[in-house]
């Protein structure tokens, strides 16, 4: 899954990324944007780019039949971002309950791969806890694992 992804375009700081989702609904531009909320804590925003208003819609459900490829592309942006900011903590909440659920399913389905390189936490009941499959979470937090020189 991880190898099948779209080409990404990045800004100079590797904080904003754009790619084109291709499917039966046409070509849809997607934006992934990491914004700093506290020192070294970033929010991950993701949605469809609206060229007319230069904005992005993070509530739209595109149904372009490529959700796994889209997810793999967002994951790639996370690698590029954390290559540049290795100590950053990235927090994500869905803009709707359904989207939060979608994020949880995406993480759950790829947890084995994600945990190779990231610490993954869920947020529930005012607490950050280690992410467990299918846990009911309100948000998610990830941090890139540090490379141990003995692992190389």
């Amino acid at each position: 899954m991880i190898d099948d992804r779209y080409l990404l375009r990045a800004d100079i700081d590797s904080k904003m990324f754009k790619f084109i989702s291709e499917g039966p609904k046409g070509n849809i531009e997607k934006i992934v944007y990491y914004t700093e909320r506290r020192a070294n804590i970033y929010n991950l925003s993701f949605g469809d780019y609206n060229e007319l208003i230069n904005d992005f819609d993070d509530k739209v459900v595109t149904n372009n039949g490529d959700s796994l490829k889209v997810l793999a592309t967002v994951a790639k942006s996370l690698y590029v971002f954390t290559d540049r900011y290795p100590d950053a903590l990235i927090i994500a909440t869905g803009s709707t309950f359904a989207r939060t659920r979608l994020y949880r399913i995406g993480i759950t389905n790829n947890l084995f791969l994600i945990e190779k390189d990231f610490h993954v936490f869920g947020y529930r009941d005012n607490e950050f806890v280690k992410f467990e499959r299918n846990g009911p979470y309100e948000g998610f937090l990830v941090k890139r694992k540090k490379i141990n020189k003995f692992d190389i």
Partner: protein
Amino acid sequence: MKVKKTKIKKLPKGVTYDPELDKLKSIIKVNSKELARVNEILEKTPIPKWILEL
């Protein structure tokens, strides 16, 4: 006149630099509801030290 060169960090395969995104970044708005929710979480629950130290 000297032209200031923009330093571009090396990007991995499959990722290219797009200067348009630098412009877009300065005008785009992030969903305020989502940001408010993130701020609410961070105010209510600071990231535990053990996670920060990982």
